[in-house]
């Protein structure tokens, strides 16, 4: 399912504001909405799902507005999760599948099929509260996908999840990608997003500060990043020639080296100027890129 959002904006006095967000995500692709808490990720997801109305802009699904038929092809996993603790796993799955327009019989079949796929068939008669926490998390994931959605929307899916379930979600996202379904993933764990997403929308205070495919972004921020930790005052390092940008946080200096400058020359100068305790040369991660982008925006 192709999802196109155009100029989404929502302003609520004294609350989070989202401004002018546009993106397009096509079947077989994963879009990552990245940013820290309060960046506006959940609000954007809610606008996609029509849980909140945008002041401006629109979202279209395969060139159509959100209709019940489309709604039934969406699977949504909210940020904080829970299910009915006193009810049997199978009943919960059938209930949510039926709400997505599956017939009773089809809902039963799909529930059993998904339980089997997630190695939970032996627990279908158990109530949720009888299951260990990681199993309960699996039920929450199953509720999201029991109706085989064409569009999967995940809000902070890795947050609070057991490691095994994190892997399960990663595999699920990759499977959906392979099966040419669409995935929108909102997360603040940028390293995970980097490995899963095809397209990225970096958000800061409700605004898109960087947008594009991971490859495009990497190309744009292809310079080397030198991390320096030392006992001396590190502020002088920003005067080193070839350093395009300098950031100092918690006695860790980040030196963004101009791509046309040799890194070795910069390293020599650092060693000469300060007593270092740690020195690393990296390609900037998404988090570094995010930080730089935020910083750039602040300067602008």
């Amino acid at each position, binding site marked *: 399912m192709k999802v196109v959002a155009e100029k989404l904006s929502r302003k609520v006095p004294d609350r989070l504001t989202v401004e002018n967000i546009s993106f397009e995500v096509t079947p077989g692709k994963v879009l990552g909405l990245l940013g820290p808490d309060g960046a506006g990720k959940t609000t954007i997801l*809610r606008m996609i*799902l029509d*849980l*909140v*109305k945008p*002041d401006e802009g629109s979202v279209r699904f395969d060139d159509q507005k959100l209709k019940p038929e489309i*709604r*039934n092809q*969406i699977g*949504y996993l*909210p*940020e*904080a*999760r*829970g*299910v*009915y603790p*006193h*009810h049997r796993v199978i009943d919960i799955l059938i*209930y*949510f599948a*039926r*709400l*997505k*327009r599956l017939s009773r019989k089809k809902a039963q079949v799909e529930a059993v099929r998904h339980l089997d796929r997630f190695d939970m068939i032996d627990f279908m008669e158990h109530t949720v509260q009888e299951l260990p926490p990681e199993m309960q998390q699996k039920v929450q994931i199953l*509720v*999201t996908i029991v109706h085989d959605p064409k569009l999967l929307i995940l809000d902070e899916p890795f947050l609070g999840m057991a490691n095994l379930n994190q892997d399960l979600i990663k595999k699920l996202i990759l499977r959906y990608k392979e099966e040419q379904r669409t995935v929108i993933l909102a997360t603040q764990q940028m390293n995970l997003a980097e490995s899963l997403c095809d397209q990225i929308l970096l958000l800061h205070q409700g605004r898109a500060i960087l947008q594009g495919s991971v490859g495009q972004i990497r190309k744009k921020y292809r310079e080397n990043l030198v991390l320096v930790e030392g006992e001396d005052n590190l502020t002088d390092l920003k005067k080193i020639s070839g350093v395009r940008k300098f950031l100092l946080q918690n006695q860790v200096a980040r030196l963004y080296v101009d791509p046309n400058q040799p890194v070795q020359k910069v390293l020599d100068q650092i060693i000469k100027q300060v007593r270092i305790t740690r020195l690393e040369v990296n390609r900037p991660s998404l988090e570094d890129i995010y930080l730089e982008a935020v910083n750039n925006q602040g300067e602008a």
Partner: protein
Amino acid sequence: MRNLWIITGWEFWRHLKSRSFILATFVPPLLFTVVAFILFFFYRESRTPQPRVIGCVELDTTRYCEALQEKLNNFTLPGTGSPAVILMDIQADTTEPLRNLFQEVARLKHELDSLNDAYNRIKERRRYIFQRPNSPTKERLLRQTYEQLHMTREQRDLAEIEFNRKKAYVDSLWQAQILRTADSLLFNQIVEGYLILRGEELLNGEVEFHSIYPNQFLQIEPLKTVLQEFLVEMRLRQEGITISQIHEWLKPVVINEILVEGAKKREFSFLQSYLAPIIVVVFLFISIFTPAGFLFYSLLSEKGNRVLEVLMTSANSFQIIAGKILGLGFLGLVQILIWLLLTEGLILAELLSVENLTFFTLRNLGVFVLYFVLGYFFFAAIYVGIGTVYSDEDEAHHVHLVLRMLSISPILFSVPILMFPNAVFVRILSFIPFLTPTFMILRTPLGHPPEIDYVISIAVMLVSTIVALLVSIRLFRTSSLFYHHRPGWTEVWKLLWGKG
């Protein structure tokens, strides 16, 4: 609409099997049955004929106590033949000094009587002398007896003063003593109360009754009737009326209390007329607030664990709210049905008499169910609004408690409602939506409210429910995604008119 019915079914079945529903459905009737049986046995026990022992204090020597007991002997306990009231003649427990004083009074009385006799004798002698022919002896004897008469009269007057003084003193001591004895019998629970009879006051219709048990004053009526009869009989006797005629005239009136219900007439019963509507209201209250409470806490919990957010991606606000309200409403109807079946079971087991349920006509049952449905929808709509605005269970619980208290408050007015079911203030209060269901149900079996009251109250409930529902859907749409933040009143107002 399909999702509405799926949610309805889900909410119905999941709560039907819940422990809370089973407890709310079976514990109250069980509790009521137990309490009713205890009260019944207590009532029966208290009705078991037991003669009342009443003391009788006579502050003179008219012997009214004895005569009154004779009269009371005619009033026997049903089925036993023994007197319903035993009148205990209370005598003063006289001490040695008091006895000495009595003797002293008796001596003074004797002395006074002797002087009276002597005086009368002298007077008699003077009359005899006076009739004799005039002579110096006659003159002398008259002079002599005159001096004797004068002296004796002086002595008698002095003795009379002394006697009266002493007697008044001893009488007051004796009366105090006899009242002390009566109080002691009362405090030692030998008598339940005592009458004080003073001859002159009794003839004027004044009698004092002393007791330490408040309930004795509630049961004074039979004693009063007997005293009244006794007094009237005594006065009639003084007028020379024959005893048989007196008894004929004093034959008591028996009033058969018949309650007219439409074309039907039946004997008036306190249980049917007053207690039963209150019991129905209490059960109605439970049947409204059990499902409404489920709805409230289900919304709070679904909001807390974000299930509501997932539901909102599958169904619209109306489908979610209507589905929940309907599902739990059916649950309330099932609860009422179970209670009706339990009542039927009690009747079949002959533990409950059909006569006590005559107010349960088909029409009244229809009225009860109608007001249950209206009341439930109204409170459920309000609960949806509150449940979605609040995210903290403790805070929401306080509001829930206030609403419950508000709706059950008519029970506090139940006596005036039942006494004056169609009074203006009762009619006005019946049109306040929070009170309407309970007021109308309390009024229905006893007051036969005017048709217009039904029309107005139903219209009020329908309009209030629609308004509450619209407001709640609006609040649900705008604030069900607020977590860890309870909007203030101004914010709620803005949410009502703002965008979703």
